């Protein structure tokens, strides 16, 4: 059985010539009868099957539709046409550390992000020590996040993210942050995921990383594979 099945998927965005967030500009635009926007086809009739346990790498230039595909799979965007079928629990990592708040402590933020990712309070409590140790932040549990360096933030976010019990993982350019040591840790986690038979979709510009891990690589160009 396929973990992900995408058939004939299309998505387009309207790109206004001028930013119309104000009521006035929308009303004026309406009165003057100007359409004032272009349609951008981010994805054009995409078909894609991902097998269970497969590690799929996606590359391609900016604006080719990689992130749009991930957002559609994650359910953040709704497709114009086409169907997406997902078998299993899916966890998207389009950005690490969602919901992090600088005014709260590391401990409080672990609960926020963990909950957003679908962990229960008890699960977070049980794995709390593991998260802190993996991130190497034992001394900073009660420090407000605004006093963290960006490296510390990335480590904390990643340590929480890997606690998620999902069958399918969507990963978008997460490796762009962090130093070499941190990236190495990430690779090890990827290897572990692979061993555990999880389905992973990894999006990156870095063709070397993609080639190293992926069972299959697809390249996007102008909204097509």
């Amino acid at each position, binding site marked *: 059985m396929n973990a992900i099945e995408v058939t004939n998927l299309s998505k387009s965005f309207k790109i206004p010539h001028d930013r119309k967030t104000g*009521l006035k500009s929308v009303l004026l635009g309406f009165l003057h009868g100007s359409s004032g926007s272009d349609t951008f086809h981010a994805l054009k009739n995409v078909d894609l099957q991902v097998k269970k346990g497969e590690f799929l790498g996606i590359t391609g230039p900016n604006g080719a539709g990689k992130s749009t595909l991930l957002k559609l799979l994650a359910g953040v965007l709704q497709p114009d046409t086409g169907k997406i079928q997902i078998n299993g629990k899916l966890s998207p990592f389009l950005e690490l550390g969602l919901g992090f708040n600088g005014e709260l402590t590391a401990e409080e933020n672990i609960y926020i992000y963990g909950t957003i990712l679908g962990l229960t309070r008890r699960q977070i409590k049980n794995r709390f020590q593991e998260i802190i140790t993996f991130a190497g932040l034992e001394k900073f549990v009660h420090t407000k996040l605004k006093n963290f360096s960006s490296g510390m933030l990335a480590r904390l976010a990643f340590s929480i993210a890997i606690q998620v019990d999902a069958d399918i993982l969507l990963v978008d350019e997460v490796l762009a942050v962090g130093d070499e040591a941190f990236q190495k840790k990430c690779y090890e986690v990827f290897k572990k995921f692979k061993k555990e038979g999880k389905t992973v979709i990894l999006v990156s510009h870095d063709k070397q990383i993609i080639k190293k891990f992926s069972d299959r690589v697809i390249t996007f160009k102008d909204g097509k594979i």
Partner: protein
Amino acid sequence: MSSYYTNLIRQFSLTDFKLKYHGSVLGYLWSLLNPLLIFGTLYLVFSIFMRFDVENYHLFLLLGIVVWTFFSESTLNSMQSLYSKSNILKKIYFPRTIVVIASNFTTFFGFLLNLFVFFIFMFFTGVGFSLQTFLLLFYVLCLFFISLGMSYILSALNLRFLDIGHIWRIFLQIGFWITPIIYPLSLIPEQYHNYFLLNPLYLIIEGFRYSLLGMGTVTLLTIFLTLFYTIVIFVLGTLIYKKLSYKFAEWV
């Protein structure tokens, strides 16, 4: 999935609550002080400078302010809460209603504290509970769901048009004065009284006053109207919000 829903609501409310009062010396007391200060000022003006012929005017006024404050904070906080989560909305899916529900729980908690303070005032004035008090539960529920329904509509639209927030603030200002909060309805010429039946907040404030202070008029018609407005606003709000929520990620 349903436990995800409740976990997230709890976590978001908790976070909202912590952030609202973090770092301020008086902490949670601020949520009590705000309506009390408004009350103090208005009480000074309208019971000493200009007098209304209302028995226990301070209770009459405080109760109106407490109810109005919940309605206005509920809508304003929800708009702010959804807007501040723009980035999360773009990156992960969760049922979007959670944001507004969580925000309303936080505001509702503040409302309960305010109501508690009102009870203390009541106690010291010597006004006791009576048989009508059981109606309070009905009006609290109506207030909550009307506010939730309005919060849905406003916070969704505000994400698309940021003007909505400004317009709504002006509207709340006007609403505060055209709703009988600081003055009794009896001050208004009788021929206009029917127009007030169009204002759900008037009906609710009147209901609170009737159930706790034995003032004002509550009839089967006003109870029915209150319930009617509550259902219409809540259902309409939920439908609009759910329909628009598919577009949130594209708007923000």
